[in-house]
């Protein structure tokens, strides 16, 4: 019994570490100027998501979560980066500066505000559960969703916007693996497939935009608006 408890204790800590680093990568995607660095951070974030899933899999002794971890690593940290690099020209990744709408320190402060918002949004739900994993993953996951959304809003380059979107999905999955660990495997597979299609579609669209306008700074496309 004490052995089991100690085990849970350790898994909780490890999961907390993964979640903390996850939050850090989410912030990093706002702060990084290089497109390639953004992509690398996304890979790391996906690996951390998979790590959290594995830890939860040990905790709940569920093969299902291991499968989720494998799918996550396979699609999000191998297939999607490969796709994005293949589809969008190298030139976009070599670019150092991303023209952001707000400067980075302001972004980081706003990001903090979003994290606090996520905490308050999820706190009424935490009352229903004493599970330490949920207490960690749900707020961090929600924060990941909000930070990803923020990255999409402030970034002007196409690829970081795609990565922001995928990071939003990562955030919801981080929350998902602990609040819905027994979601049917078909739904998980479909979701992974869906994420893959997002990357494919948006990568192709970016390529088309580049062919047509000669740039990937989608924030500069602003011919359609109300006058």
């Amino acid at each position, binding site marked *: 019994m004490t052995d089991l408890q100690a085990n849970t204790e350790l898994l909780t800590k490890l999961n907390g570490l993964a979640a903390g680093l996850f939050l850090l990568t989410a912030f990093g995607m706002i702060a990084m100027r290089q497109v390639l660095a953004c992509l690398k951070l996304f890979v790391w974030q996906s690996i951390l998501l998979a790590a959290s899933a594995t830890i939860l899999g040990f905790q709940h002794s569920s093969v299902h979560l291991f499968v989720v971890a494998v799918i996550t690593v396979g699609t999000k940290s191998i297939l999607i980066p490969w796709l994005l690099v293949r589809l969008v020209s190298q030139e976009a990744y070599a670019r150092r500066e991303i023209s952001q709408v707000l400067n980075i320190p302001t972004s980081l402060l706003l990001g903090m505000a979003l994290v606090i918002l996520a905490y308050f949004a999820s706190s*009424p739900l935490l009352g229903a559960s004493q599970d330490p994993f949920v207490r960690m993953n749900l707020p961090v996951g929600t924060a990941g969703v909000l930070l990803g959304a923020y990255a999409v809003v402030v970034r002007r380059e196409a690829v970081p916007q795609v990565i922001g979107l995928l990071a939003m*999905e990562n955030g*919801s999955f981080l929350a998902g693996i602990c609040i*819905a660990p027994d979601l049917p495997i078909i739904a998980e597979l479909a979701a992974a497939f869906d994420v893959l299609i997002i990357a494919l*579609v948006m990568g192709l669209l970016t390529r088309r935009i580049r062919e047509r306008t000669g740039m990937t700074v*989608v924030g500069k496309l602003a011919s359609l608006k109300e006058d």
Partner: protein
Amino acid sequence: MELLVVLLVPALSAILCVLPIGGGLAALSTVVGCLAVFLISIHVALTTITRGHVIAFPGWISCDSFGALILLLVAFVGLTTSIFSLGYIRRVVPQEREGKKRRYYARFNLFLLSMLAVPAFSHLALVWIAVELTTLLSVFLVSFEDTSEALEAAWKYVVLTCMGAALALVGILILYWGMKIAGRGDFTWSGLIVASPDIPGPFLQTAFLFILVGFGTKVGLVPVHTWLPDAHSQAPSPVCALLSGIETTTVLYTIIRLLPALQGLSHGPGSWLMAAGLASAGTAAFLLLQVKDYKRLFAFSTVEHMGIIMFAAGIGGTSAYYGANLQMVAHSVTKAFCFLAAGSTLLVVGHREIASVKGLIRVSRPAALALLTGSLAIAGAPPFAVFLGEFSILKAGIQSGQEIPTVALAAFIVIGFCGVMYHVNRMVFGPPDEEEAKVRLPGSVLVALGISAIPVFLLGGYVPGILEEMLRLAAASLGR
């Protein structure tokens, strides 16, 4: 079983479309497929009336009468737009670009498939995926014309709606968690209603807000509507008809379906929906006054109508739900008709600017008539379907004691009416700048206009018994 066939037919036509054989095969298989889907949908609808529901896979793929209503709408609009596409695409795409045409039809079928899947699926996780797919499979339809504006519109569309979908995913997962805490039932629409009394209030509340904002982005709620006028105006006209007529409706359907599960809440979702609806209708009504592009005009009108339907769903009560459903049906068929009319106008005049179209009636009588009827119908003039829907919504609003918001909504509807009619009047009548040669529209375009006009006129005077029964059942299923 019928539901599986409904889903398989468009998939099959999509495969046929990409096969590089014959010139007309893609178009033909699309139209035939859509016809088959429409006929089977009627069958599904009839079955749901007699038996209550149609089940393909229990807990995964099934639909009740509300779902069947949406399925029928999708199938009908799919049929008319596929016929319209025949003539439209032949005119727009050069003869030698065979591959481009085939790609168009393949994507058309896939898009239709994803929209048919939304009402046909009953497992919430699958519904989410279907909604996400409606975006992803229609992106390249929006960017079909390959201009930088179309690409910009497509980018905005995919980015904003995918953001919305990610937010909605959190909501869906929270609902799933709530169901687990409640400890029973499948994760389906009906299972959710059964379990809802045992799901803690904060779960339902938070999940609802996430889903409202998330899917609301896709519906075009103010202030996350900005992509809608862009995407709905830049896409080829038949695709606009699909996007505006049914894509928004199917997503709105998923939001409204949550309502019966939320009725135990102390701060009900009604006020949220009413506020969101009123804001959308109001903003869109004023934006309608200043548009310069007639396809954008109809796109803003979509935002307005989504607001109206949402408002109706927010009022609550069977008569308001009935009004909401009627308005959904009326808006779908009318808006699809409007965009087909706008597409015909585009074929005739060649550009989308309102200011430089004058005296359309002298250039092409069918296009002008269609545009005029469509605008009158969508603006809510009396003998048409939308008028009936709006009237029943306003009546329900007054009856339930929400006088002030209802009066505000009525004012917005009037402003919207003025906005639409002001622009369309100038386009249709008035002296043309110079004497222009008459342009003939392709036969299939005329046929599509004719078919899609039928319900616009018909539903204004009289709702067929079967449809009436379906609307009643759907309204009842919302009221729990």
